[in-house]
């Protein structure tokens, strides 16, 4: 079981990396819009000024 003494700290390092990456992503604005990405896939590209989709 002594392998845990290496694996757990290693896991914590990875965890730290993940947290850092997430903080960076939030700080760079990637999570500012939590609503549109979910529907972007079903949006057509042919938005016209009169569509009202973008308001």
């Amino acid at each position, binding site marked *: *079981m002594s392998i*845990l*003494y290496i694996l*757990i*700290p290693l*896991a*914590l390092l990875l*965890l730290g990396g*993940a*947290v850092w990456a*997430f*903080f960076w992503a*939030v*700080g760079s*604005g990637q*999570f*500012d*819009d*939590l609503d*549109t990405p979910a529907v*972007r896939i079903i*949006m057509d*590209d*042919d*938005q*016209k*000024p*009169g*569509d*009202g989709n*973008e*308001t």
Partner: protein
Amino acid sequence: MMGDAETCFHCALPIPANCNLAITIDGEQHPACCPGCKAVAELIRDSGMGQYYALREAPEPGVGRPPEEAAEWRVFDNDNMLSAFTRSAGDDSEATLYVGGVYCSACSWLIESTLMRLPGIAAAELNPVTHRLRVRWSPEENAYSEILGALASLGYEPQPLTGDSEARPELLEQRAALKRLLVASLGMMQVMMFAVGLYAGEFQGIDAEMQRFLRVVSLVVTTPVVLYAARPFFAGAWRGLRTRRPGMDLPVSIAVGAAFIASVYATLTDGPAVWFDSVTMFVFFLTLGRFLEMRARHRSIDRTVALSSLLPNTATRISADGNVIVPVSQLFAGDRILIRAGDAIPADGFVVKGESGVDEALLTGEATPQGKSTGDPLAAGSVNLDRVLEMQVTCTGGDTTLGTISRLSERARYARPAFVTVADRVAGYLVIALLLVATIVATVWYLVAPERAFEVTLSVLVVTCPCALALATPAAFAAASGRLSQLRLLVTNGNAIESLARATSFMFDKTGTLTRGVPKITALVVLDNNYTEYDCRIIAAALETASSHPLAQAFRLDDTLPTVDDQHIEVGQGVSGSIDDRRWRLGNATFAGAGFAGNEGSATQVFMSCDNNAVAWFEVDDTLRPDAGATLQDLKARGLRLALLSGDQQAAVEKIAANLGIDEVHAACSPQQKLAIIETAQSNGEHVVMVGDGINDAPVLAGADTSIAPAHGASLAQTSADVIMLGDSLAPLNTAVTMSARTMHIVRQNLAWAIVYNTLALPLAALGYVPPWAAAIGMSASSLVVVLNALRLSRVE
């Protein structure tokens, strides 16, 4: 395929008669409407991006058109402008631009690829939905003005945005909340894993050294969860203590703090138990509840308001020494400014020159562009679509319609409904009571079984936290007003939802509320068989172009009109003019002559004659809002009493009432009489909702239990209505009634749930049947149930 023979290949505007320009792409000749479009198209072709024309959707008339005059972008290279509009990102500079005229992914592809070819550009990302372009470049290799110029030369009008519009407070709040949520959730998962090891060890036996190791790692992971993710709870508790109004943060903080310190102590001294798992789980669920509540709250900030950050930061002022680009903050009433196609309008004002279609969807929700010509009002935040307009500014900044809407919804955000304040106060007393109970439980257990005293007290503190109670009402109100603002009803008073739910009667004003307040042609009778209805419309429209009479609006047509010579306006009578040497007269019966006789009725009749021969007559009337009838039927079907209060004459009012199926009609009322009618109803125990126009009816609106006003530009600033209807449609009224009833229902459900949960959980925990981790789950689940229940309101149809 793209450009028809008569429209420009690039911008799709009609080609002027004496224009003979051509664009050659892939060996094919296409027509162009002006040298500017030709230049842009050739620029696109020569950059090897001719694919744009194949990729783009149907071209939008006027969009992508080059600016008529090359703007002086150099202004933006001075230090003041640079510090306002750009920020540094390492060695690079970064800026956000609003790019008008981007409607499809081909535009965004074209812009991104063009920019990426410029020297020194590190990144360019354009979001076609928000129209925001983020660009990063090295200031040594390229200048800000070059980027603006490159966009302008493609025909897109860039609007530099200040950094402020990025740093909206709710955005910063959301970022912080997301980070906290992530730290709490990752921390919880890790600690949970170690906890499994520790629990298994308790049953199967574990090395003392391994147990200490797992506890230390748990401690390492829990520390940031407590110190970072749970910080708002500690801050809230401290604030509550200082103001002597303890809220739910206090027991939360005591529980988290005490459990954490006790666990640290146990880790250092090899004590019997640690509660790291309970601590992280408690913090995670609380943070999740707060996060969901925050999202509901943010959603209630109307998207209209969020979009007000789309206002341009600069404007082109027309002055004696040429056009100058100035920051919008330096615009004043009376300034004349130039609005190019694709520009957002920076202030309220009216058109002094030019004619164009304007997209006012931001303010009214009306999707079709509105035709605007000389004298027509323009509202800040709407977008000029087709042609250049010259406008005179009447008000700027916070005084504009958009500014007023922002302010009203801001007010709603900070004004807490009476209902919530009561719940808060109750929660405050409850907290004190719970702290007393916890002390008693601790003392009793200390006397009976000292080794379990801490654990049981911890459970009691956690399980009874009145979070659910405190969240029950605000979450429901936030979700409801968020949904209502999506339906274009802006709730400006926190009590409005509750009082709408109790409404027993609806009273309506007529003009501008049930009707549009804009005259329209409702009937056209052609008397001369030589003319079609369309001929008559076109001739009338041409004759009325010179008139500024309100009725002239009814005749406006967006079409090619015949030329009128010798136009003459007889004030209060009509207009006359010559078309192809024939004399046309349009106006009242006497003015038009030709034997017309006026007849009495509610609508206004306008007669048209040609060389003294009767040609046609029009009936012009203020039209009903299209869904007025259906909406009123629905309200009636709910058993609500409907009444029409109007200052107009009996006949006109009764006609409308009969049309809409309203039985109770009060015509020719002064505002005092209207108020008296409302007060009589109220003294009979009725709960009156008044739907009326803001200006004339201000005292009437104030007298009603709930007031609803449509948002008409000028009246908006003075309105004190509880709810503002932003759209053109009345149907949301019906939804608002459903919504308010549902909201109160959900609030009652939530409160009942919170009370039942607390009364059941407290005795169990006090008797020691609930371990701390179960208490954390129970309490968190009960708050989540409350928040999720409230969020159901955001899906009410």
